[in-house]
Each structure stands twice: as structure tokens, then as C-alpha cells.
């Protein structure tokens, strides 16, 4: 768009035609106050805080609704303007309860800030204020009407942003009130976006309310630990008896890939961390029962047993199961430990997407993966399979708001009706299980169309394909329905469309990382086949070069008594794959976990693990965006998986320097040892990095491994300083190894929905209370039948 020149307070400002005056002012650092204006939501002109003087206009104008025009001369502050804003503040305060001392928002309230700036210290009114009782709308959403300033942000974010439309305005005039969709309560996606966007303390969070004051918290920027989308989130952390307590998850830092967004899991699902059933002590099976032990005892036993099995039966008698929720550093370290220390390629994890097939198809091709940010800006999107609203809330948000704000065209191909149909340009139904044929058809195999009847005939499919071929810069997003050869078909199709890119959907917070880091029996990090990866062989010395056992093969091997030991890190194969627990009772089993899962219950040694809020490292989201995870604080009774792996190696008599190439340093590590000060430590790490200093000084420091990852894993050589500063860095699959053909049956979708999150979610009070509440509500159809 052509640029328009205006002056603001004497400063020249140039901005694209169509820019709102309030944004143009912002672009030169002039802040015009606002309550109702919110970027990317519809305009309201309701609060009248943004009044400014526009030359030649008799009345003050609202900067939030005024579009700039050539030659416009604007004054953003003057006695008249100041008075106008002051009187608005006076007027809202008139009916405001001023219960700041107990209000959740106190200290981070826009009304307080505005009062501070436009100071209306004295009230002109002596009449009683209008009062209404506080209401609980859902387990997580509370509403306190007297505090509401009617900015309608909540209404818009729920409707326009979430496409839920659960909030509205009732009555008129001074009786106007924000109302939930079910008379006195909400039935909604419980994302809490309305709470976060509320400029005052009118909407409050059930999980957080009355718990603390904002200034008593430390704010730690990290990455959500639930689904594979990788929202950036800020944890509000307080000291507690056990070290620290997370009291809030929000997104006050809007710089992340998710901008404003967090779903219910990111916002409330952190409370599994202090669940009563959390493991707090190592346990060793004695006389058939798990009994508390010391860490030393536990490590010693594990070291002894692993060494014994290794010597007697060789590394192939040990099976290692990694996690979708541990950091990249931990996954990398785990597979290195398996290969270098245990001498086995028997390593696997719960696979939820066919990344090896994607890596194989993309090797040597230009960068063909899209980042989560790209999804918000793409002109067109093809989504095959999956239900992002439930399984990838952020992705759904990106797609939805791209359609709303940028007019992107969304093409859906799905076996089921999904909510995103409301945003779709076209919806094509495909018989369940035939999604793979879509890929083949798109790639040019016309015969595949015959399997694709559904509601669309052959001509319809051909028309769709023609249309898609004309969509330059298309992003193709596919769920786990597409695997193996179908993935390469899709890549073939992608290559024929100018600028097209791909996103492959996996299910857990670091599923992509687990795959990229080589938690496979046949693939090293970066999808390098075990026998061919000379880089790794040089670096690590002797490693087994024949492929190891997959998880089902390990189970089979254990059943027949060949597999003598298990090392399970952050996984619950018994629970997840319904494996007969008896299989595990015949071998020596070590489990590192937060809870006594079905698998942990069968273990000989259980080690209490720190979760992603209690350690630092990096995660890779499903798109391949690499982000940091930062430690919120120290919890004394548990250890990060990273440290435990190193300790076990040491207990086996292994020189840990060969595992973690840490060097003598003079500085602190990535936050690992700084406990409650980790927020500072992260900044500290950036500082060190900027000066070229090496922060790592202990074998428990994941940055030492991050160095190795960045050096050896293709696509991970992103600028470290950007990463540590908290910016997402897209990794590329174009230099990956050739991958390997995988058995598609090994991929099992997690099928989590909006309110569940695998084993983790089972221990979240917030998620459980919401699910409970939803179960107790009569279904819409029942209500109608009444």
C-alpha cells in the first residue's frame, strides 16, 4: 500500500495507507492511551481515552478509529486533551469499587496506570456506587461486574479471536453488563483469553484469584509443556515450602509465536507440578515393594545392574524408552547414553507423527517447512486430517485469525466435521482412513481419486487439486493420518506449488524434538541412519551400527526374557499402549517420572523427575520452531532427567566428559544451578553468550549438550543468542539424513482434546475440574428435548 505522511506532535510519521492513527503514533513511540482499542480486534470507539486533536476538526477525535490521511496534523497531548482523558478516568472510577488492595489486577491494572497518568485523585461524587455480586461462570472464570469498565475486549477476543462467542453484553446504559452464554455460567473452550485481555480485575482466574500480588511473583518466560504447538508463556512463580509454587500462567509477553494466545492447558495446566501424588523421593523395590531410598543408593544400584546386564548379555539386552516431554538436550543425551554408554540402539519413544518420512522426503530440498508464525501469514492453507481446535489450539488460532485478519483461504480435507469449517473456503470430506490417498492423488495419482468418494466426486477432487496448484505460498498442514510414502507424495505435491511449505502435526510438547534428537532404534539425531552417520561415529567413538529394537519389539523381547533391563525416561508405555505389565516384571526396570504411573509401578527403581517448569533447555514444536524452556525454580526433592542420566553413567564407571563435553568455566550455567534466580540466570546466559564466554561448568549443564546439538544436528545451527533471548528459531529439515522407512503402525496419535494432556493432564486439578464441569452440564440436545 502507498505510504501516507502525517505529523504527530511535530514529528513526521510515514505509514502505509489504511493505518490507524493510534498505530501510527505508536510507530514513533508516542503512546496514545486506550482501553477499548486492542490490536487485531474490531474497533469500538467506546472508552474515549484516545481522544486527540486533529487539525481542522472541531471536536477531539478518537485515534483508535481514525485512519491516517495525507497531511494530517495531530496533537496527542494538550490541556484540553489531558482534561478529556482525566474526565473519562473520573467517570469510570465513579462506579468503580476501588478495591485495588484485594484485586488480582492490582499492580498490573490498566485503570490504575491510567489513573496514575491522568490523575483524578478526588472523586466528585458522593452517591452510592452501583453494585453487583461477583459471579462464578466456570471453574476457571469469575466475573466481578463493579470492576468492569465495559471495554468489550473480552467479548471480542472470545468471539472474533476464539470463534466461541460465549460472551455478550446485556441491558443498556449504566445497567450494561457482560454476560456469559448460558445465563449464569459459561459453556466454552475455557481458554481464559477473556481474563488475560481484561484490562482490569473484572474477569479473574479461578486458579489464581486472591492467591498473590503480582509484585510478589517472579515472572519466568518459558514454553508451554502440553501440546506440540509451543506457546510462549510467562509463569508467575512464588517461593514456597517445597522451593517454589507456580501460581499463574499467562502471556503478558506477547513476543512469542502465539502472540496473545494460550489455551486452557497453557494457562491453567501447570498445577500438576504440585500435585500431592508427585514423587518426591527415589524408591527401590525391596521385598517386592517400592521403598524410599537415598539418591546415592538408587544410582549405585542402577549403575551396578546396568553394568551387569551389559557385561553378561551385551547392550542389546537393555531397552531405552524416551519421552515426548523432555528437553532436546535430555533426549539427545538419552540416546547418546544408550548408544555410547549402554552400547545399544534399542531406543524408541511414543511416536505421534511420521517425522522420519518427512525428513527423508525433504532432504536436500530447499527449506520447505513452515513455522508457526508462517501459518498466521500464509495466503492459503490446506489442512488434511486432524482437528486443530482440540489437538492444536494454537495452530487453530493462527489459522482462524489468519482467515479473519488477512483473508487467507482455508481448504479442509477431513473425515470428520471440525470446527475450523467455519473459516474454510472449501470443505472436502474424505472417507475415514483414506487421507493418505489424498496425498497420492494430489501428487498426481488420479487413480487414487476412486478411493476418495465421500461427499465429493472425482471432478470435485480434480477441481480442488487444480485450485490448490494455483495457490502460491500455500501451507500444507497434515495430521498423523498421513504417514510413510504418503508423506513423500505430499512433499512431491508441495514442490510443484510455488513457495508452498509443510507442517507435520505431532502431539506432545517436544515430540518433534524427540524425533529430531534421534529417539529411534535406527536413526541418530537429525534422522541419520545408525550405520551411516560418520559425524557421530567420529565424535562418539564406537557405537553399535545395527538397528536396535522398536518399542513393540523390545516388549516382545522382554516377554521372551531376552531383554533384561529397561530404562524408561518420562514415558508410560504400559499405560499408553496397554502392554501387559507382566512383561516388565521379568527385567530390571528403571523409571524416571513425576508420578507413579502404570509403568513406574512395575519398576525396580523409580527416580522422581523434575518437569519442564523445573529445568532449563530447549523444545522444538511441531513446526520445527526451536524455543527455550526456562526453569521457574528449584524443587529440592527431584532432579532433572539430564542430571539423572549423567549420574547413572557415572555410576556405571563411565567418564562423563565423554558424554557431556563440559569444560572448566568460571560462570554459572543456563539457570540450572541458580534456583529461584533463574530468571536472572537466563539474562545472565545471554550476557555471557554475547561476550563469547562459555557458561558451562558442570556435567549437569544442558548447554554443553546444546553446543553439540547445534554442531551435529542439521538445521539446529540457529543463532544461539536469539534463542537464549527467548526468540523462536525455525530449524530446517533440508539437511537431514535420509531417514528410514518406518512401520506406520508405530505411530499412535495421542488424541488429546482441549482439556486433556496425556498422563500430565490427569494430575492437573484445573483441567480435571473443567472436564468434570463439562460432564455435569447437560448436552445441548438434552436441553432441547426437555
Amino acid at each position, binding site marked *: 500500500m502507498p505510504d501516507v505522511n502525517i505529523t504527530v506532535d511535530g514529528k513526521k510519521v510515514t505509514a502505509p495507507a489504511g493505518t490507524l492513527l493510534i498505530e501510527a503514533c505508536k510507530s514513533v513511540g508516542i503512546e496514545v492511551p486506550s482501553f477499548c482499542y486492542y490490536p487485531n480486534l474490531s*474497533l*469500538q*470507539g*467506546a*472508552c*474515549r481515552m484516545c*481522544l486527540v486533536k486533529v487539525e481542522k476538526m*472541531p*471536536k*477531539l477525535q478518537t485515534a483508535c*478509529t481514525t485512519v491516517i490521511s495525507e497531511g494530517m496534523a495531530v496533537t496527542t497531548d494538550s490541556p484540553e486533551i489531558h*482534561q*478529556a482523558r482525566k*474526565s*473519562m478516568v*473520573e*467517570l*469510570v472510577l*465513579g*462506579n468503580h469499587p476501588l478495591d485495588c488492595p484485594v484485586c488480582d489486577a492490582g499492580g498490573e491494572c490498566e485503570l490504575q496506570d491510567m489513573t496514575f497518568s491522568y490523575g483524578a485523585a478526588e472523586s*466528585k*461524587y*458522593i*452517591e452510592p456506587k*452501583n453494585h453487583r455480586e461477583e459471579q462464578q461462570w466456570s471453574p476457571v472464570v469469575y466475573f466481578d461486574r463493579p470492576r468492569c*469498565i*465495559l471495554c468489550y475486549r473480552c467479548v471480542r477476543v472470545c468471539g472474533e479471536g476464539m470463534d466461541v462467542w460465549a460472551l455478550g*453484553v446485556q*441491558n*443498556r*446504559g*449504566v*445497567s*450494561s453488563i457482560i454476560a456469559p452464554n448460558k445465563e449464569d455460567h459459561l459453556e466454552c473452550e475455557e481458554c481464559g483469553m477473556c481474563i488475560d485481555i481484561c484490562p482490569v480485575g473484572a474477569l479473574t482466574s479461578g486458579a489464581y484469584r486472591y492467591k498473590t500480588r503480582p509484585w510478589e511473583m517472579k515472572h519466568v518466560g518459558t514454553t508451554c509443556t502440553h501440546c506440540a504447538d509451543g506457546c510462549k508463556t510467562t509463569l508467575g512463580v512464588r517461593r514456597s515450602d517445597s522451593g517454589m509454587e507456580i501460581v499463574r500462567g499467562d502471556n503478558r509477553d506477547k513476543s512469542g509465536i502465539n502472540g496473545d494466545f494460550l489455551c486452557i492447558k497453557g494457562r491453567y495446566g501447570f498445577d500438576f507440578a504440585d500435585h500431592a501424588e508427585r514423587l518426591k523421593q527415589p524408591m527401590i523395590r525391596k521385598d517386592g515393594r517400592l521403598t524410599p531410598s537415598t539418591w546415592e543408593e538408587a544410582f549405585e544400584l542402577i549403575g551396578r545392574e546396568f553394568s551387569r546386564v551389559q557385561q553378561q548379555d551385551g547392550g542389546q539386552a537393555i531397552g531405552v524408552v524416551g519421552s515426548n516431554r523432555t528437553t532436546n538436550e535430555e533426549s539427545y543425551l538419552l540416546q547418546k547414553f544408550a548408544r555410547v554408554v549402554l552400547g545399544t540402539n534399542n531406543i524408541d519413544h511414543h511416536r505421534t507423527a511420521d517425522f522420519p518420512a518427512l525428513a527423508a522426503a525433504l532432504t536436500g530440498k530447499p527449506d520447505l517447512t513452515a513455522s508457526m508464525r508462517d501459518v498466521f501469514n500464509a495466503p492459503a492453507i490446506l489442512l488434511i486430517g486432524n482437528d486443530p481446535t482440540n489437538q492444536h489450539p494454537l495452530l487453530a488460532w493462527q489459522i482462524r485469525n489468519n482467515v479473519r485478519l488477512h483473508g487467507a483461504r482455508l481448504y479442509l480435507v477431513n473425515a470428520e466435521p471440525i470446527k475450523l469449517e467455519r473459516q474454510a473456503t472449501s470443505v472436502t470430506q474424505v472417507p475415514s482412513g483414506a487421507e493418505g490417498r489424498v496425498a497420492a492423488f494430489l501428487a498426481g495419482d488420479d487413480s487414487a481419486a476412486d478411493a476418495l468418494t465421500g461427499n465429493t466426486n472425482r471432478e470435485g477432487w480434480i477441481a480442488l487439486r487444480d485450485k490448490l496448484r494455483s495457490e502460491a505460498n500455500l501451507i500444507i498442514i497434515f495430521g498423523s493420518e498421513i504417514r510413510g510414502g504418503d508423506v513423500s507424495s505430499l512433499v512431491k505435491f508441495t514442490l510443484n506449488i510455488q513457495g508452498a511449505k509443510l507442517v507435520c502435526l505431532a502431539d506432545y510438547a517436544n515430540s518433534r524434538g524427540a524425533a529430531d534428537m534421534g529417539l529411534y532404534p535406527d536413526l541418530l539425531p537429525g534422522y541419520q541412519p545408525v550405520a551411516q552417520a560418520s559425524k557421530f561415529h567420529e565424535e562418539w567413538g564406537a557405537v553399535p551400527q545395527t538397528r536396535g529394537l522398536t518399542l513393540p519389539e523390545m516388549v516382545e523381547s522382554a516377554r521372551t526374557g531376552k531383554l533384561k533391563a529397561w530404562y524408561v525416561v518420562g514415558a508410560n508405555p504400559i499405560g499408553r499402549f496397554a502392554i501387559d505389565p507382566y512383561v516388565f516384571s521379568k527385567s530390571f526396570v528403571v523409571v524416571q517420572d513425576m508420578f507413579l504411573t502404570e509403568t513406574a509401578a512395575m519398576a525396580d527403581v523409580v527416580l522422581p523427575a523434575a518437569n519442564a517448569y523445573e529445568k532449563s533447555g530447549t523444545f522444538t514444536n511441531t513446526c520445527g520452531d526451536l524455543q527455550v524452556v526456562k526453569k521457574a525454580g528449584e524443587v529440592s526433592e527431584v532432579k532433572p532427567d539430564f542430571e539423572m542420566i549423567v549420574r547413572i553413567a557415572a555410576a556405571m564407571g563411565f567418564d562423563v566428559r565423554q558424554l557431556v563435553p563440559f569444560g572448566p568455566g568460571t560462570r554459572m550455567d543456563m539457570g540450572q544451578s541458580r534456583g529461584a534466580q533463574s530468571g536472572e540466570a537466563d539474562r545472565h546466559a545471554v550476557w555471557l553468550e554475547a561476550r563469547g564466554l562459555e557458561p558451562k561448568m558442570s556435567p549437569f549443564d544442558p548447554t554443553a549438550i546444546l553446543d553439540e546439538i547445534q554442531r551435529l544436528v542439521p538445521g539446529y545451527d540457529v543463532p544461539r543468542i536469539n534463542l537464549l533471548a527467548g526468540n523462536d528459531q525455525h530449524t530446517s529439515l533440508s539437511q537431514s539424513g535420509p531417514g528410514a522407512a518406518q512401520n506406520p503402525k508405530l505411530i499412535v496419535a495421542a488424541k488429546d482434546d482441549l482439556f486433556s494432556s496425556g498422563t500430565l493432564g490427569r494430575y492437573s486439578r484445573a483441567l480435571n475440574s473443567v472436564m468434570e464441569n463439562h460432564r455435569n452440564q447437560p448436552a445441548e440436545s438434552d436441553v432441547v428435548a426437555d
Partner: protein
Amino acid sequence: MADLVSHPDEVKVVSKRFGKGATNLDRYLELDGYKAVQKALAMGPDAIINEVKNSGLRGRGGAGFSTGMKWSFVPKQSPKPKYVLCNGDESEPGTCKDRLIFEHDPHAVIEGVVIAGLSVGSHVGYIYVRGEYRYLSEIMQKAIRDAYARGFLGKNIFGSGYDFDVYWHGGAGAYEVGEESALMESLEGKRGIPRIRPPFPAVVGLWGGPTIINNAETLANVPHIIMGGAEWYAGLGPPKNGGTRLFCLSGHLSRPGVYELPMGYNLKKMIYEVAGGIPNGRKLKAVVPGGASTPVLTADEVDVGMDFDSLAKAGSMLGSGGVVVLDDATCMVKFALRTIKFYQHESCGWCIPCREGTDWLKKTLARFHAGAGLKKDIDNIYYLAENMLGRTFCPLGDAAAMPTMAFVKKFRKEFEDHLEGKPCPYEPLGRTMELPVLAH
């Protein structure tokens, strides 16, 4: 239903057919009905707009904008359908004229709507009638049905090849919905809240299409202009204030009622001659000249011509033609309170200054009138109103602020007389709290 009144000074244009049974279509045709629309069909859009422009017709809904000019803003080409919207939400205290038109001459409104449509190439018109005017809904709907039955509406009207549909729509009881953009929201089935402007309705209106919005009286004048010619119509009033106007004279008058008088007619004459002066031997204290939103005039200020420009010069507004006359037994504080009660009740609540401002004005004035006023309240009331003025989302806030400021400015002494716990000095005179308006 209101009784009709009359006076020799009246010049009957819009009220020409009042009381003559023109709700009956045959009768309406006998009284030259539906001739204008046929003439307009022959004239073509540009000629219609020019005629209306030259007639000096200005909007009767309140703002007094040139009607012909408004129509000329509608783009000739539009990808979306164009609409005509007749504003019959008439809810301003003191104003009660559109109801008479709907009641006595509904076909004139229909005719005006069709001609407006012809002038901009629209094929659909809506007539939005205030919800409380329930008794008018059947009259209006029957008129529309009858016009369809004769082929005056619908496909190929008057055999011209031009299609035009008209729909009636009843309001749900909100003054704010008379504001043109809130009117469109309401018609579209949403909450009655104004829209951000620009864009103006002439460019982006109903369902995004260009829309002409005019007051019912404005539109009812149009057929007469087409028939009588611009020159004749303009000549009825002073320059730039063409035609006549339905003045709704209410309050302390001997012969209150709706009179059609030429624009620019002297207010004093209106009170003392047309409406028979102040009854019960009382004297004039004040006049609200153009509906509750217009600043009050004192008894000394009533020697003024009742047209848009003269009243603007006198510091008030012609507004919607509601002239409320108050005698010297009226408590102006109470009157101010009654006025603000209306605006507090009718504020849509969208924007802070109007929602909160009207509420605090009401609370303060109520306490003040009840005898618990503080000296600083008087300035606070003025301060509140002054800070609403010109800063609200729509003009309703101004409509509440302007009269309030005038009451304080012009009748400060009366406010002071209420101080120090003194009872209202006018209470013994036995007036009720109600704002004097014509019986509904």
C-alpha cells in the same frame, strides 16, 4: 390518538391530508396521492435530486442536513444493494409529529420512500416505526399491503419497469435507535448501538450497502416538493430553510398541539397566538425549542425565528420540532432532573462519558432536588456535562449535556435556591415530576 388542532397561520403541506381519511388508498388517490411518484419516475434520478436540493429541504430528524445533498452522496455504482430507510423512531421528549403522519397520511411516507429510492437507484425501502407506537403498526402495514395490491409497490411499479419493495419494521423501545447508525444495527437485528463513522450510511449502510436515512417528516415532504416544485417549497420559508415544519407545541399552553407553520415563524407568536398563551394567569419562564436535547431559552430569548439558522444564532437548535413551554411555576432543577432521567434511561451504555456521565448527573440532580445539594454540586453538574460534550461516541451524549449546561448557566439562581436543606421552592405549587408532553 391525539386530537388535531389548527390555526389560521398554518400553511398545510405535510399535514394537508390530516383528518381527511387518507389512510384509505382510494381517498389518498383522490387527494392527489401517488402522482408525485409517477412524476418522479418520469424525471429520473438527477432531476429528482436537483429538485430536492433546490427546495431547501433540511432534515426534520434533528440535525437539519440538506436532504438533496445527502442523497447526492450515494454512489451511482454499487456492488451491494442500496437502501432507503425511513426513520420513524420518534422518541425525543417533546416531539410527536411523525406519529401524526403515520396515522393520517401513511401513503405519503411510502411515496417519499419510493421517490428517495428512485433518486439513488435503490429498490428496497424500510419504514422503521418506534416500538411504542403500536397502534400505528397496523395502519402502516395496511398501507403497504394496499399499495402492493395496486401495483404501486413490488415488481414493475406503475408499469414503469422499476421494482421497489417496502417493508415495515417495528422498534423495541429505545430512543437511541433513532440515531441513524444504531437504527441500522437495530434493523439488522443487533443491539441498538451506533456504528463508527465514517463510513457514513450513504456509502456503507444497511448490510454494507449505500443507504439513505431520512426522518419520516422529511420523506413525507418529498412528494409535495416533486408536485409543487422546488421554488414554491423554498419560498415557504426563509433562505436555506425551505418549507414548513410540524411544530409540536406542548407544556403550559392553552392550546397545545401539532401545528404546521412556515420555517422561521416567530417563537413568541407561536406561544402566544398560535397556542393561545400560558394558561392560569401564569407567566412564561422558559422554552425548550426543539425537543429535549436542545438548550433552553429564557422568557427573554423567545423573540426568535423558528428555523435552523436563527436558533443556532440564539445558542440553541431547531432540533426535531418539539417546543416545550414552561411557566413560572416550573422548578428548573426538577425539569433538568426529568430531562436527564430520560437520557440516563436511554443511554445505550456503549461509551464511558454518556453511560457514566448521565448516571452521575441523574444521581446528583436527584439528590440536589431532594434538598441534599451541596454548593459544589452546581459546578460539578456543569463540569460533568461540559466533559461529556463533544466527546461521546454518538450525539446522545451531547443531547444530554447541552440542555444540562444551559439549565445551570441560565437558571443558576434556582439551583442556589435549593441549597442548605431548603425544600424545593416550587414544590408547594404542586407540580408532578413528569415532563409536560402531549398525552400518548
